[in-house]
């Protein structure tokens, strides 16, 4: 069936748009429970987004086009990346055009513009956030590429679809290189998506913020798009990790009937990943800013070890 990949692609986009806020809500819900509080429910992020969309946008007088353009760009990048990472099926037309290096580059573009927008208005907090974000980026991006390359080595491809297919077919084989790469990937995910112990997404203290400091001046629909894109980024990183390191249940046969099962597997894996994230976030305090270099350095080291062990052991 020729239309099949396109239907999958559309399904994927719908899933990321709709499920990313639910996943964020799930994390918040677990967090509330772990702290002994009642939670606002799974759908609170939707309400927040709707609230922000219904508010007016307030823009500083000296804001340039970069400031206005950035929310759309960041949102667009998140949606586009949603078309690249295999969630339900490996049969993705976009995955064939953009490989994992392109994916990292896409995120880098979004980050670049967010950092520019943070400095655009000229407030101290924005510039501070941008400078911290770029510090993290310079350490996290190489580590991320190293981790992904380790997987690419094992699958002899940088296309996500093929990587997933290879790993999926060689399911029973446990590769030490992948274990190292997975550990590195988890550390990078925490840094890239601004979670504790790297950044605190729930803080109100401007001086401690990293990602939030850059988008402090945004309001209304701009902020809604950025928040939504942030949730999608978290969702995508988790999906990327799941696809590359635990692709069980993903549909690889081109059969429609397998889609519901794949969807169910995806939900289960998301739920488990959310629980893992909350365990990390509840048990740890945020680290001192300059410990980040050690944190991301160890991510890089783990990824390098993964690569070495591929050559030595496999």
């Amino acid at each position, binding site marked *: 069936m020729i239309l099949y990949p396109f239907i999958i692609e559309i399904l994927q986009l719908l899933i990321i748009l709709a499920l990313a806020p639910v996943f964020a809500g799930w994390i918040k819900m677990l967090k509330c429970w772990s*702290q002994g509080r009642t939670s606002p429910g799974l759908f609170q992020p939707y309400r927040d987004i709707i609230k922000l969309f219904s508010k007016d946008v307030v823009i500083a007088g000296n804001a340039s086009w970069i400031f206005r353009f950035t929310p759309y760009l960041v949102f667009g990048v998140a949606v586009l990346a949603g078309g690249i990472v295999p969630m339900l099926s490996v049969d993705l037309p976009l995955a064939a055009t953009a490989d994992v290096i392109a994916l990292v580059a896409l995120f880098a573009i979004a980050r670049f513009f967010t950092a520019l927008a943070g400095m655009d208005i000229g407030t101290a907090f924005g510039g501070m956030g941008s400078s911290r974000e770029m510090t993290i980026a310079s350490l996290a991006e190489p580590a991320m590429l190293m981790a992904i390359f380790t997987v690419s080595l094992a699958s002899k491809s940088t296309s996500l679809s093929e990587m997933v297919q290879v790993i999926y077919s060689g399911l029973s084989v446990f590769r030490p290189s992948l274990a190292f790469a997975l550990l590195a990937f988890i550390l990078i995910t925490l840094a890239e998506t601004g979670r504790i112990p790297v950044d605190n997404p729930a803080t109100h203290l*401007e001086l*401690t913020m990293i990602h939030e400091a850059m988008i402090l001046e945004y309001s209304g629909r701009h902020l809604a798009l950025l928040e939504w894109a942030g949730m999608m980024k978290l969702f995508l990183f988790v999906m990327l990790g799941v696809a590359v390191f635990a692709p069980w249940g993903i549909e690889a046969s081109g059969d429609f009937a397998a889609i519901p099962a794949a969807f169910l597997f995806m939900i289960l894996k998301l739920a488990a990943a959310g629980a893992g994230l909350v365990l990390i976030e509840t*048990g740890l*305090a945020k*680290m*001192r*800013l300059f410990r980040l270099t050690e944190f991301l350095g160890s991510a890089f080291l783990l990824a390098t070890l993964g690569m070495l062990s591929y050559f030595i052991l496999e």
Partner: protein
Amino acid sequence: MSVLTDAITSALGTDIQFDKRQYPSSVICCTVPVEKFAEAAWVLKKKAFALLAAEWASDETPFGRGFCVFACYRWGKEYLIVRSELPSDNPQFPSLTRRYIPAYRFERQIQSLMGITPAGHPDARPWIKFEDWPAGAWPLRKSFDASKPLPRVAGEYEWIKAEGEGVYEIPVGPVHAGIIEPGHFRFQAVGEDIINLEERLGYVHKGIEKKFEALSWQDGARLAGRVSGDTTVAHAIAYCMALETMTDCNVPERANWLRAIFLERERIANHLGDIGAICNDAAFAFMLYQMSRLREIVLRTNHKLFGHRFMMDKVIPGGAAVDIDSEGKKEILSELDSISKDFEKLVIIYDESPSLEDRVRDTGILRPELARELCVVGIAARASGLNLDCRIFNPFPPYDQYDLIELGVPVLITGDVHARTWVRIQEVRESIRIIRYMLENLPDGEITSSFTPPSPDMSGFAAVEGWRGEIIYWLQAGPKGEINRCMVRDPSSVNWLGLEQAIPGNIVPDFPLCNKSFNQSYSGHDL
């Protein structure tokens, strides 16, 4: 004779006169000629190693005199007030700032609010009063009419500037994210390293000291309870004690014990909140919610037993407004049992979380020698090796029965965020213990006694250890027996400087954590 009076009499000899209008008699007040004012400070610092507790001025024109400037020194158990009379035209006094650092702000405040010039003060910028006030408006002078609105004039505050490659400024506030009071912090930073922090306060200046002068002695206690809402009990006790020393009011034993129970409950509630909030600023939200839960239990018991969550207006001149019956006693005891059980578990979590420990240790260090120079008080002092606590060193009843109450006070020397947190943790434990003791041994009797207003031209002094630290009140009765001056010295008035000096050398994202570990009152400082 005492160490402080010995030092000052041996140095200044016949120049000093002892003032008999100052109560209680244990607090000695002496008058020195104004030109010897700074010399007295120098002698007390060099010979007696005294700390400066407060500096203030009063307008004594209703008595037919000019102005008066006061400096209060502390050494161990002793307080000594040095007083100098100034003429009403062009009043000036020699600045103490070069001898005692905390005088830096006290004197800017005297200059701004009373219009008395501290000669030789290095900084002529206003403090608390803003630059948009008209020239010559001195709100604490008797000639100032507080009921009329003032015109606004143009003016600019000059900030300390830093220059050089890569130096940038971060202005924070006065309106902050989150529900806290307003204050402005200006950082000069290179990269993430803070090279200087300058505070600017005064955004919640309400004219409280001026307002006191229009109130009756009874109503003054209610206003004192509103100087800083989270310290309402301690402020009310300090005001009432200063007042009671001037009138021969004999506060019943039971009332003293009740006041102490309220005071310790206030300490527990605030410390619990602070410990949680400190952890939350390191993104360890679990502690915040658990500590807030415990704090809420304390507040709800307060509301149930005493009719107010913070026990506002429960301390009145002459005694206490509410009693504890046997039901209430049982309730508090069982509440303390459950709180201390949960609290100990949370302390273990605090103590055994390496990621949290990494944040709180070695952050925001106020070195002991600097703490001493800055004359900080309370939690900040005890975390930096200064063993200061009025409950021990200037014991007000019932703490003067130390053989019964046996109060233990934690003193740590590291001066970092952890030390300030740990002092709080220890104090919560100690407060729980002594509340239990006081409930079991509560004396019988009345809880109020009759109270007569003081006679003219008397002054009363009291120092009380609130949860932040030593609170000082100095009251002066006017010619008709009304309030002529009420000086309020919240611990924050000195400790804000401690924060400012503890910050350079830290990194920008650590500031909120350091600030929370001091947790000063803006309202109590701005008055």
